[in-house]
């Protein structure tokens, strides 16, 4: 049965058929017909944002906390260009998004019309794929195809640009089941021969390690379960990238902490000294590898990734396996069990002894104070006071982000939303709103820095409008802390433009937005302040005034290998050489 309708109605119909319940967006001239359709229905909730960048980060928060694609609706020109940062962020972190943008009518395209921008041209390098739909008859199937592309293989953001006349014109609607699957069908199963080879190595390995990444989370909760089963059964240590936190529980017995530039000492030294590295859905990012030539020099490396282009891009691996992490883990477990569940137990216990030795360095130790709140202490208290609650954490980008990754613990996937690849300041506040939309009853906290938080603070208004009780936990050091840290370490303590002068009064700001807020500066008041934030029924800003010159440790300076970590301020003088200084 064919149903004729306008393009605008088709958009709503297709979103409904795709199971979309929430759209983050901002209206404008070129999407008015779609907004008219939104007005006339109740199935899809539209969250009115205050800036289109916020809409995309909200959709990212929604997607990362649910595993479902996030949906964004913006107008032409500035609406679309404001979405670019969010699209790039989602591309680098492999987050499934479907962004719909309005465009000037087809007969005005190319005339520099009002609010015209070459949206598909601008977003081509920052989307997984994009489409300009010039014919209403193609619209519904393009939307269905867009959902397929965004969510299959390595997930990512897609964009559909719809000229206004296409929204007004009528054509037959095509449902998702009537759309041909198309040529884009990425492989999911890994090569069984390679998996068997890997299992053989696992049976004999003396110093194995699971190096897990965002791919485990993206693969779905089943992959996290399989990882837990495999790690617990083999007794291999598990480390994770920033993106993969929560896939293996921080309370699990094989957990050795996050690795990388600000990762744990034991995790980085285990990576450096292992003899079998099993990379599950991570991509050897430069924050992880340090100096590539000295990266884990003595190990055989296996890499499981759904994206063939991730393999051998940075680090040459011995056993590449292209496939979905969940499927490959399932096969690994099956093969390993069928071969008699063997591991090199004697060597493994020696390996754990070594790891425990590194762990006893207690690399996250810091000098606490009873006069001023240390940011690490603030996060330890936040962790303690939220323990056992179904808690979702988002972050902005910088020092607070690294401290949150170090001092907060995640026992479940999809509970940790942070901008990893692109490092987008201003991500956390809108992301927390997206998470809260998806989980209205949950505790959602954005761990922020003062500078990052200001970048998208207008979205506090969105939180208030939709009565979303997001908690803004601002570690306020009146600095661009990470920039300041780098200037201290490698630019001769010349702190160029890295302080936040004229900061607003965050409590008054909260009041101005119509929510609640408080400031805390005395360590003795910290617990009560956090508890008040948690107990408040509504959005809340807690301004935590912390030590201004605290640095994030441990740290692998740019251009150094894993075994040359800095553990504290005493070691920092001359730590970064000129070769490392050109890196970021």
């Amino acid at each position, binding site marked *: 049965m064919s149903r004729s309708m306008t393009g605008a109605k088709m958009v709503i119909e297709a979103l409904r058929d795709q199971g979309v319940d929430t759209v983050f967006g901002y209206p404008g001239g070129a999407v008015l017909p779609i907004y008219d359709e939104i007005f006339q229905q109740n199935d899809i909730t539209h969250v009115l944002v205050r800036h289109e960048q916020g809409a995309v980060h909200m959709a990212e928060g929604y997607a990362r906390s649910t595993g479902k694609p996030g949906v964004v609706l913006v107008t032409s020109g500035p609406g679309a260009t404001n979405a670019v940062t969010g699209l790039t962020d989602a591309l680098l972190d492999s987050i499934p998004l479907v962004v719909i943008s309005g465009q000037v009518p087809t007969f005005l395209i190319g005339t520099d019309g009002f609010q015209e921008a070459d949206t*598909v*041209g601008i977003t*081509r*390098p920052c989307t*997984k*794929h*994009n489409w*300009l739909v010039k014919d209403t008859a193609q619209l519904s199937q393009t939307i269905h195809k867009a959902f397929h*592309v965004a969510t299959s*293989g*390595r997930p990512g953001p897609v964009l559909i640009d719809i000229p206004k006349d296409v929204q007004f014109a009528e054509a037959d609607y095509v449902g998702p089941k009537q759309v041909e699957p198309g*040529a*884009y069908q990425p492989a999911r199963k890994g*090569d069984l*021969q*390679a998996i068997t*080879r890997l299992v053989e*190595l696992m049976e*004999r*390995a*003396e110093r194995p390690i699971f190096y897990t990444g965002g791919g485990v989370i993206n693969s779905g909760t089943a992959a996290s379960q399989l990882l837990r089963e495999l790690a617990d059964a083999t007794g291999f240590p598990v480390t994770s990238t920033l993106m993969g936190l929560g896939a293996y529980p921080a309370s699990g017995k094989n957990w050795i902490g996050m690795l990388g530039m600000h990762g744990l000492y034991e995790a980085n030294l285990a990576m450096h000294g292992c*003899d*079998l590295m099993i990379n599950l859905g991570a991509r050897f990012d430069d924050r992880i590898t340090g100096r590539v030539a000295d990266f884990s020099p*003595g*190990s*055989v490396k296996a890499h499981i990734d759904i*994206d*063939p*282009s991730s*393999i*051998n*891009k940075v680090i*040459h*691996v*011995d*056993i*590449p*396996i*292209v496939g979905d992490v969940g499927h490959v883990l399932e096969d690994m477990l099956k093969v390993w069990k069928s071969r008699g569940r063997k591991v*090199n137990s004697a*060597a493994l216990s020696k390996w754990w002894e070594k790891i425990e030795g590194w762990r006893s360095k207690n690399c996250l130790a810091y000098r606490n104070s009873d006069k001023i709140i240390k940011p690490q202490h603030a996060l330890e208290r936040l962790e303690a006071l939220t323990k056992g609650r179904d808690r979702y954490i988002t972050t902005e980008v910088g020092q607070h982000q690294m401290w949150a990754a170090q001092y907060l613990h995640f026992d479940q996937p999809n509970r940790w939303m942070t901008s990893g690849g692109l490092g987008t300041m201003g991500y956390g506040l809108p992301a927390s709103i997206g998470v809260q939309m998806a989980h209205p009853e949950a505790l959602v906290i954005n761990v922020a820095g003062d500078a990052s938080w200001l970048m998208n603070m207008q979205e506090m208004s969105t939180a208030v409008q939709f009565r979303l009780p997001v908690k803004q936990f601002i570690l306020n050091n009146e600095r661009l802390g990470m920039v300041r840290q780098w200037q201290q370490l490698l630019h001769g303590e010349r702190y160029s433009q890295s302080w936040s002068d004229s900061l607003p009064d965050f409590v008054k700001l909260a009041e101005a937005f119509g929510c609640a807020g408080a400031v805390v500066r005395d360590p003795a008041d910290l617990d009560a302040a956090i508890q008040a934030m948690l107990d408040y029924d509504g959005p809340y800003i807690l301004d935590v005034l912390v030590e201004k010159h605290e640095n994030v440790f441990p740290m692998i300076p740019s251009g150094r290998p894993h075994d040359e970590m800095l553990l504290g301020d005493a070691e920092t003088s001359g730590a970064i050489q000129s070769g490392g200084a050109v890196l970021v």
Partner: protein
Amino acid sequence: MNALKIQKGASSHSAYDLRDPNAQVEESHTLAVLVENEPGVLARVIGLFSGRGYNIDSLTVAEVDHTGHRSRITVVTRGTPAVIEQIKAQLGRIVPVHEVHDLTVEGPSVERELGLFKVAGKGEKRVEALRIAEIFRANVVDSTLESFVFEMTGTPAKLDAFAELMQPLGLADIARTGVAALARGL
């Protein structure tokens, strides 16, 4: 490492059979990229090369299957073996790209390019240009009393050689199509 007895680079069992990953020698490869003929697909392919800093030595594109909406992009690129592998993998993940073939490693192939050469001259030089054109089996496709336009098909090296010989004889302008290539046999 020793306990596991695996050779570095021994990955012949994988989907990606790599040659020596550490070789730093740049190689020239001819890639055939079969794509859905949809708007912007060429921009996606060349945007990938510029965005990731790869080289394009030659590029040709045309629709080769009108009913199936398929176009064939032939691109000649340069890079170390690791870079060439990365280029192929990156091309492969562009959504409208159906197939990527590395004609340089997949067996023998034929490569041809068409060139148009305008040579201006009088007297002995004009006669000499015509004589060399015959040796190269170039055709005269335009003639005035003071100029010829030669058309020639061949390998890029043959076109280079012809252009070099025509230089002192009054070569005025060149247009080249870039390489089109097909695998030999079935």
